[in-house]
């Protein structure tokens, strides 16, 4: 009897595991919905339009930051400069805009070019010099942070422009954050890059099996470097939007996004070993992260308890998600 019960239990767990493996994005959305349901059950006032607006807004911001990370991870790399590049992008934004309208294009060009430069450096150090991606991007992240500190004396100047702030924080139909309009640009670009472009196919092939990709005539170095450039560019642009959300900037303001974007991407089903993953999954992972954070705050837990709870939930999710067999090399 005991044995039968044990077999049934294992079968159920295997079914759950299989379901998660089959569609991590769907699973992340289900867990996020459950968590929000629990939040509302425990704190009924948490069900309101403002909460939904904020969840959408923060999910969008994290999913933009996760876009580049997804591409890099699929190609077999890792990018810890996301947070530092976002902070630098925010600092550049407030410095150039300085609270005045009319500098959007100039800001955009400077942010994108400087971010792409950092991405290029990441790519060259990782691919051409052959240093470990995690170490290199962490080191470059430190360099970028120190540079922002040196260039601003630790106290960045200026504010985002009023029109830009409005373009990020306004509400469409009373509850959809206008930040979603930026999503109408970013999401199609990322989906096109990953699923419909030649580069996207090469990214999956390189991440799946670097040697096989090279033997098939793919310039793997070029592909990998490009993923870092794309990641940094998207991070820089997200930092710019973050400046609109926060209205001002501080050094290392978005450092937490390096970790959060990585978790969102992994929770969304992208394998650390490369070659596997979807951007839809990363968006769902971002939603799950935001809903979880929202829940811990709504429950009025102290910060240390929040951190512990966040850690436990994240580890549990990663155990469930990361049980996929290694991709054949």
């Amino acid at each position, binding site marked *: 009897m005991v044995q039968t019960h044990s077999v049934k239990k294992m079968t159920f767990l295997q079914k759950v595991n299989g379901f998660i493996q089959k569609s991590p994005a769907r699973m992340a959305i289900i867990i996020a919905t459950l968590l929000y349901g629990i939040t509302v059950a425990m704190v009924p006032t948490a069900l309101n339009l*403002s*909460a939904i607006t904020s969840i959408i807004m923060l999910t969008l911001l994290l999913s933009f930051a996760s876009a580049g990370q997804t591409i890099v991870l699929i190609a077999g790399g890792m990018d810890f400069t996301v947070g530092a590049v976002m902070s630098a992008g925010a600092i550049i934004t407030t410095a150039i805009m300085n609270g005045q309208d009319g500098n959007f294009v100039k800001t955009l060009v400077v942010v994108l070019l400087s971010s792409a430069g950092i991405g290029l450096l990441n790519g060259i150090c990782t691919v051409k010099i052959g240093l470990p991606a995690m170490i290199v991007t962490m080191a470059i992240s430190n360099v970028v942070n120190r540079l922002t500190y040196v260039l601003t004396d630790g106290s960045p100047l200026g504010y985002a422009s009023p029109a830009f702030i409005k373009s990020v*924080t306004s509400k469409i139909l009373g509850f959809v*954050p206008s930040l979603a309009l930026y999503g109408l640009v970013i999401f199609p670009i990322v989906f096109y890059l990953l699923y419909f472009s030649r580069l996207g196919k090469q990214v999956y092939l390189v991440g799946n099996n670097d040697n096989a990709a090279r033997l098939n005539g793919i310039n793997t170095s070029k592909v990998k470097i490009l993923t870092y450039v794309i990641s940094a560019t998207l991070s820089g642009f997200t930092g710019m939007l973050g400046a609109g959300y*926060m209205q001002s900037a501080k050094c290392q303001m978005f450092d937490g996004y390096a970790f959060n974007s990585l978790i969102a991407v992994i929770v969304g089903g992208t394998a650390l070993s490369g070659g596997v993953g979807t951007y839809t999954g990363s968006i769902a992972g971002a939603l799950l992260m935001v809903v979880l954070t929202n829940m*811990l*705050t709504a429950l009025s837990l102290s*910060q240390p308890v929040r951190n512990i709870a966040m850690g436990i939930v994240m580890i549990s999710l990663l155990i469930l998600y990361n049980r996929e067999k290694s991709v054949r090399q």
Partner: protein
Amino acid sequence: MKKMCFIILIIALCIPTVAMAEDVRLASHNAVIEGNPYRVRYEADIQEAAAAAADHGLNVSYASFVSNWDPATESQQLQNSINEGYDILLVNPVSTTGLDPIIEKAQDAGIIYINADCEYTSEDVDILNISTDQYYLGYKTGTYAGEVLGSGAKVVMMAALEGNAANTARQNGFAKAIEEQGLEVVATGNHDWDAALATEIMTGIINSGVEFDGVLISQCAEAALAAFDATGKPYPKFMGFNDTGEWMQKMIALNDDEIVMPFMVLSNPPGVGASALNFGLNILLGKELKDDVYNVPEINSIWLPSKLVFTDQDIDNPEFRAMAESMAPGDAITYWLTIDEVAAEYFK
């Protein structure tokens, strides 16, 4: 010839003065600097105070060490400073205890060891603690919130970093005022002095749908205010305190025509490090501290008062407006006690 003699005379008079200047080597140890505008200003103020010591015949050279919140690195750096023979160690510690052996070693070597800003609470060593009166910051803010909102008002309490000595003292002050004023705390959070986290936590509290009248916050107020803009939630009836240029500038912009949101600005000067240095220099000059100067005698702790207080009542105060306009967004209000001021107030 007369001119030449005059020049020689001037040079001759100057030589003894130069020779008499005492060389002092100062090592400033911090848990963190980069990314923290308060700490950046803290170090800059120490450098300025060090340069100003020349007026007292002290030629202070300065070196800065940052442990990045790593106690092991902090111990190693302090050990190096002892080995290199610095005269004064000015330490803003990673933690409130754990440095006793290093402190004893420094004192055995004849080094003046002063703990600045965050208190070092071990009672087993005999060092001077110099910090700003953090209790007052919490108490003053809570009291003013009570006056503005009235008894029974509901407030959000957003603290800084759990376990940090300054935060603990502030929270004690907030708690006392909340009790005295009859306020009700309906939601709590910690922002850890992280602007993005402050916005995130405030957003979460707004999202929870809890009704509140005011926000008591231990700095990072401008970041919490951004959550109201992003969510579209009307501003609370009170928010405070903070001490940055950004907060002051925003309060002026918001309340310029009429008072939309009562607020509080309190100084928590980064110059506390420079004041602490001037305590050290007075000791170096052979002066002795008065007996009744300690706020916490068990740990030789002196709390320097917060000098500047601004509220919505000061919206037309020229001093407030001039200060706000002259500051960068991330700058904090700063000042420090000079060598003479410290001597007059705290030394025999």
